[in-house]
């Protein structure tokens, strides 16, 4: 009896990684984001959620494109993905030498990332969820004050963008989330909501109305500029844009 139980447990343990490696639970809570919730100083409130442990890979995205042909690069509507969408693949349904199966998929638009997550019964994480998950290191939930954490985040910028992307499979952080700050940047659901004017009543100059967002939001933790640069990058993008190093992962409710 005891043996059988042990066997069953062993079986369960062996089976678990295949299932549970996909998404891990993160507790959420109050989080001091670089982007105050009220545009001034309020911390973000993050509900418990689950996050994909790894970014979506070329192989995974290829399987999605095959089952959702409207997202093939030769069929996608131009308003949903720009000209460079998946342009590093050999053809619409072949990865080829420029896109290895275990590399994170890049050159995907926000719309395409969102559609992929939907096909997994998931959604894109919010900025707060992403920033919160990325704040951890191997042992701490919030390692952001540690110079080593900042150094790691900054080292991304010194990697030439022409260098081939490494395969995913980096060391997990304390939640079991891998590859979140490297090797790619990731789309978030509210990428176009990060720098919006907190007061758009100034009607004198239409250009000021449109662009005063960047000046109106006060950013916290200015020394944390590696994270702030990500916000600037995301805010500069349109939802159909694709870039060499923008990938994504998905999130689910608790």
């Amino acid at each position, binding site marked *: 009896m005891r043996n059988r139980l042990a066997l069953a447990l062993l079986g369960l343990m062996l089976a678990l990684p295949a299932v549970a490696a996909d998404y891990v639970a993160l507790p959420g809570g109050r989080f001091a984001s670089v982007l105050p919730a009220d545009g001034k100083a309020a911390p973000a409130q993050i509900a418990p959620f689950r996050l994909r442990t790894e970014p979506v890979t070329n192989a995974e995205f290829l399987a999605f494109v095959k089952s959702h042909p409207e997202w093939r690069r030769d069929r996608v509507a*131009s*308003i949903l993905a720009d000209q460079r969408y998946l342009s590093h693949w050999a053809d619409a349904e072949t990865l080829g030498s420029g896109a290895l199966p275990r590399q994170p998929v890049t050159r995907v638009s926000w719309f395409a990332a969102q559609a992929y997550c939907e096909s997994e019964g998931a959604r894109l994480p919010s900025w707060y969820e992403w920033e919160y998950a990325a704040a951890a290191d191997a042992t701490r939930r919030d390692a952001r004050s540690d110079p080593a954490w900042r150094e790691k985040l900054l080292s991304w910028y010194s990697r030439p963008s022409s260098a081939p992307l490494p395969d995913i499979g980096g060391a997990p952080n304390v939640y079991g989330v891998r590859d979140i700050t490297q090797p790619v940047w990731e789309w978030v659901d*509210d990428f176009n*909501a*990060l720098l919006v*004017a907190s007061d*758009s009543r100034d*009607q004198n100059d239409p250009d000021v109305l*449109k662009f005063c*967002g960047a000046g109106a939001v006060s950013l916290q933790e200015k020394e944390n500029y590696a994270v702030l640069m990500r916000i600037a990058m995301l805010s500069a993008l349109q939802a159909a844009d694709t870039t060499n190093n923008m990938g994504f992962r998905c999130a689910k409710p608790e």
Partner: protein
Amino acid sequence: MKRLLPLFAMLLLLGSARAATPLPGDSIYNLKVQLTDQDGHQQLLSARRGRPQLMSMIYTSCKMVCPMIIDSMRLTRNALDPATRAQIDLLAVSFDPARDSVATLKDYAEKRKLDPRIWTLARTEPAQVRQLSGVLGLQYRQLPDGEFNHSSELILLDADGRIAARTARIGKLDPEFVEAIRKVVAQPRG
């Protein structure tokens, strides 16, 4: 009546020919967005294909700039000659589906005297709000107190749902934008 029949047949044929024309890739109607209007009618955004749309995004509890967006839409429409005016529809989609129920939209439309034959106030699900704002290039962000920060623009869609013009001038008339509407309405559909 007999004379009308061929006319009906022709209209039907025309209608089906239009439906058969593939959507241009740069049309926002490539996005599947289910709208529910102030009367509870459901309609796909793409069902608005066929007539140019003057549109924006708002939320009804907004006290600051949203009433000015509605005013600007009205002002813009009123600046058009009657023939042009009759060719366009006005559409405002809510950023705030949690609070903008059908009843709230209806109430707002009545308070602001928005004629339902001209105006569609609509809500859609949160994920689709984000998608719609994505294709329109509008930014919004919900604050902890429930208010929204958002960019304020009027957008002109041509009959196939392509963004033909936009203006960030809110609160007063943008003559160039009015001219753009005239041109889009006047252009023959191919």
